[in-house]
């Protein structure tokens, strides 16, 4: 159960053909499981409370209400399963669902960008997994096949990918070259050493010290520090759960990520969708020479709940690695990217007053293929944008900036998370930057991007 079986086209009796297929009969149970837990969480305390109030024997009405709700919910789940069917036909992945409001979803295979296999905990108990299809285009809908058996899911995935790339139906999923694997023994201390965890710990220690000196003030500080500590502890637990057993590998179409403790995910980030990469080095990680890589992918803003869920994919390229490993991985995703600033990449010294906190690491520069922007004091982060992905370039200057004779150059991409923002550049230099970046972006759009180079050996952990 810990890992999904490797995709084999022959092992499964599944024929993905023209005929309509149902989802797995157990899928309503997985979908319904969450509702069940929710109802129990609400119902049990309220029923217990009511029984405490009137002890006249017999069950209180609310029990019937809750049981009725559960039966209705279960019935709804079964009906939803009964009316949902899918097939691959006519160059489309077709999904039909809905009892009262019939919905027919057609996803052109040629527009499929990624196919993910996701297995939540409840589904893993039953040996099920979900196939999630991410397709390109503004307003394109994402298809979910929830749930198939854990053996079927990789087969369906391989078949969809093969069809999307115009290959034979039986082509197995292209073999992935393993790149890096994050040791869980490294992940946990790294997560604990992020500043949003260590800061409340330090405050708590200071609070304990202050209690000895001034009990009243110290207790208040300690109380709030503990609250923050609990919140950040939950954050660490969530991040640990998500990035547990993190493995990244490389296939022809993109990088594959396998991760998760309770919910296993098997995702692909296509190379072409990567709009920007960010190298993040928090304060305490720098002492150990650790770094983390995050990606920004092109994605539409969608409002539907299921689609929003589908958006929560792959933001982390590697949760923690030595700087050498991170840079090596960066070179795999973005060949020839060097996130070390040249000596003249810093802002003019007069900008120290304008941006006193971030001045130390503030830098921006560009090469033949990438724009780089570095900022942050506690957490140093470098955003790298390929010139091919630049959507627009903008020069901004406010009254305060003009007083310092500096300006900001923003480089926009189709990503949703960041834009490369070169802050506090000298006015003349900013003008040059806008000219050169837009010119180089224009030239780079004409030349097709080169394929990633042959793999170099993984550097040892530093």
């Amino acid at each position, binding site marked *: 159960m810990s890992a999904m079986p490797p995709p084999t086209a022959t092992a499964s009796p599944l024929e993905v053909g023209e005929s309509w297929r149902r989802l797995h009969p157990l899928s309503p149970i997985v979908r319904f499981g969450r509702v069940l837990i929710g109802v129990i969480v609400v119902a049990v305390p309220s029923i217990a409370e009511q029984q405490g109030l009137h002890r006249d024997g017999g069950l209180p009405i609310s029990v019937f209400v809750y049981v009725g709700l559960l039966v209705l919910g279960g019935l709804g789940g079964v009906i939803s399963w009964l009316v949902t069917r899918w097939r691959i036909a006519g160059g489309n992945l077709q999904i039909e669902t809905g009892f009262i409001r019939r919905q027919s979803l057609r996803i052109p295979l040629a527009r499929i960008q990624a196919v993910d296999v996701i297995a939540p905990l409840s589904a893993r108990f039953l040996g099920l997994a979900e196939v999630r299809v991410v397709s390109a285009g503004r307003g394109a809908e994402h298809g979910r096949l929830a749930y198939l058996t854990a053996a079927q899911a990789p087969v369906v995935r391989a078949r969809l990918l093969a069809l999307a790339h115009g290959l034979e139906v039986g082509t197995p999923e292209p073999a992935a070259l393993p790149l890096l694997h994050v040791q869980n023994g490294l992940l946990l201390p790294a997560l604990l050493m992020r500043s949003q965890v260590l800061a409340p710990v330090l405050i708590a220690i200071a609070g304990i010290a202050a209690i000895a000196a001034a009990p009243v003030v110290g207790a208040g500080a300690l109380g709030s520090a503990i609250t923050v500590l609990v919140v950040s502890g939950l954050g660490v637990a969530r991040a640990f759960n998500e990035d547990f057993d993190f493995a990244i590998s490389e296939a022809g179409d993109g990088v594959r990520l396998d991760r998760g403790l309770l919910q296993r995910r098997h995702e692909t980030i296509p190379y072409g969708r990567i*709009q920007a990469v960010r190298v993040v080095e928090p304060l305490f990680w720098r002492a150990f020479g650790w770094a983390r890589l995050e990606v920004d992918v092109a994605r539409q803003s969608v409002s539907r709940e299921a689609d929003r869920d589908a958006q929560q994919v792959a933001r982390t390229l590697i949760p923690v690695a030595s700087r050498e490993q991170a840079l090596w991985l960066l070179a795999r995703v973005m060949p020839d990217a060097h996130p070390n600033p040249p000596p003249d990449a810093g802002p003019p010294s007069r900008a120290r007053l304008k941006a006193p906190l971030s001045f130390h690491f503030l830098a921006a520069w560009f090469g033949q293929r990438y724009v780089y922007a570095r900022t942050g004091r506690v957490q140093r982060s470098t955003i790298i944008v390929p010139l091919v992905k*630049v*959507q*627009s370039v903008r*020069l901004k200057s406010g009254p305060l900036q003009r007083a310092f004779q500096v300006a900001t150059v923003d480089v*926009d991409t189709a990503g*949703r998370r960041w834009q490369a923002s070169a802050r506090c550049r000298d006015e003349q230099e900013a*003008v040059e930057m806008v000219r050169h970046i837009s010119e180089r972006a224009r030239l780079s*759009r004409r030349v097709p991007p080169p394929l990633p180079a042959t793999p170099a050996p993984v550097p040892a952990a530093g």
Partner: protein
Amino acid sequence: MTAVVTGQIIGAGELKRLSPRFWLARQTQLALLWGPVFIAALVVALIVNVSSADLLPVVVALIACVAWFVERGRYRAWGYAEREDDLIVTRGLMFRRVSVVPYGRMQFIDVTAGPIDRAFSLATVQLHTAAAATDARIPGLDRVDADALRDRLALVGEAKATGL
């Protein structure tokens, strides 16, 4: 600085300005906003029997004057240039912006006209790229010019279109 900077980016003299009717439309908007406020202040000053209330219309008039000057500065700051491969839009009085949007990146073009715009036969052309942050908007173009610009942009956009 804007004029100097855009001049450096695109070469002086290429920058096109908005229709002068846009300034009339903006003044109409200002009048529609500040006129009633001024009248209300005048009425208050006449009704309320406090000497300091007499200052109210004067203050309102002063604010309206400042708004007029700011609005005029903003009107003058707008400009755009169609270059061979990209469109440049400059705007802003206090917070100045110069945006460079390549034609190949345009996804779609909006032409909108509000009621006041229509009264002055003006329209706003807005370019959308895949980046949400792109703010290439040109307000206050003559309706005919706006349509012509939209058609030209659509044509070059199609010719130079590139994927994400």
